[in-house]
């Protein structure tokens, strides 16, 4: 069982805004923190995990609840900030 520490609501936003919001939120988090992103853009189910894979974050779970989708991730060692 994973403790969800942070939650990010990206409902109503369309690609790529859920990814941008996720990226910006992750940059404020520490390694090992977990983040649950909720979205109404079904593309988020592909894009956020892809973004995680590229940037070294772990996708713990993805799923759908009605018209919403969610991605649970754990922040990797490099939070992706450029500087």
């Amino acid at each position: 069982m994973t403790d969800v520490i942070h939650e990010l609501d990206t409902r109503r936003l369309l690609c790529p805004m859920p990814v941008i919001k996720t990226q910006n939120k992750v940059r404020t988090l520490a390694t090992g923190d977990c983040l649950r992103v909720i979205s109404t853009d079904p593309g988020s189910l592909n894009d956020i995990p892809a973004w995680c894979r590229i940037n070294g974050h772990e996708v713990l779970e993805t799923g759908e609840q009605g018209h919403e989708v969610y991605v649970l991730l754990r922040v990797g060692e490099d939070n992706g900030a450029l500087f």
Partner: protein
Amino acid sequence: MTEATQPIQRRAIALVSGGLDSMLAVKVMQEQGIEVEGVNFFTGFCVEGHTHAIRKKDKDKDKRNNALWVAEQLGIKMHIIDISEEYKDVVLNPKHGYGANLNPCLDCKIFMVNQATLMINKAREFAGDRGFDFIVTGEVIGQRPKSQRKETMPIISQESGADDRLLRPLCARNLPPTLPEREGWVNREALFDFSGRNRKPQMALAKHFGLDDFAQPAGGCCFLTDESYSNKLADLWKARNERRYELDDIMLLKVGRHLRPEPHYKLIISREEGENRFLEGYRYMFTSITTVSCPGPLALVDGNLESEEEVSQAAAIVARYSKGRVLDEVTLEVRQADGVARQVTVKPAQPDDVPLAWNVG
């Protein structure tokens, strides 16, 4: 080799749109041992996935973000940056004018390279040797009529502030050597001399690299190159009597059927369930109209209904696009942004009641 004599690992920021050209440009750099990170700018007008995410007819299409997908294929990091607010000035006041529609392509490219230049300057300040040495784009001379002409290439380099730190690997040999070439960070002879609209060289290079899946080339990645979209944006400015927009405005231009029965109001009518759900999210900002007595669309009223006649007119138009279009009467709910709602019953508009001229896009 001792640590002291090891060559410095050169690093580049690449503008990655998600299309083939920028993908190839990155690959060419990687082949030369350059470490590349990607940057993708979100202007608000990006075609990326928006419609796919909403409409049923596109439900079987990939809903991938192409820039992310490219980054994953190439094994590079990707920074997606929201520049939608700063980008307004590019759209509203393009120094170099528009293309065939409201596309400010040359100003856009200058702006994006400038943003990348600011990024590498800042990165160098903070990260020193772990900063970036130059910028890479997938531009090809003659590929685009406005931003990729031979005369405009130096304008982009100069006005963006990137100067000779801007390298276009796909057409570099048609241009004067840049700093990375002169310094020997990259081998100019291993760069390319592509030009023109013929995409066979890119296709051949993709094949050489074993790349067989990529976003359709030359399909356009910006709604501003689309005539219908540009017409809707021009209509918005005309109706408001000023050239301005918010992010929500330009998002809504991508969705639904847009009809303007009167200069002071426009209806945005959903075409299917997915658009219904999308427009639902805007009901707290607009008066909305939806059918009660039969299945039908959700419509947003952008502007004001100034009389009971206009309320009936708008309701009749919405009813026209409902399952009750052939009935004598349809009941609809007209709900204000604050949630106050009332019902009206109208005869659905007939085809001749909705002139083509009302269609703004």
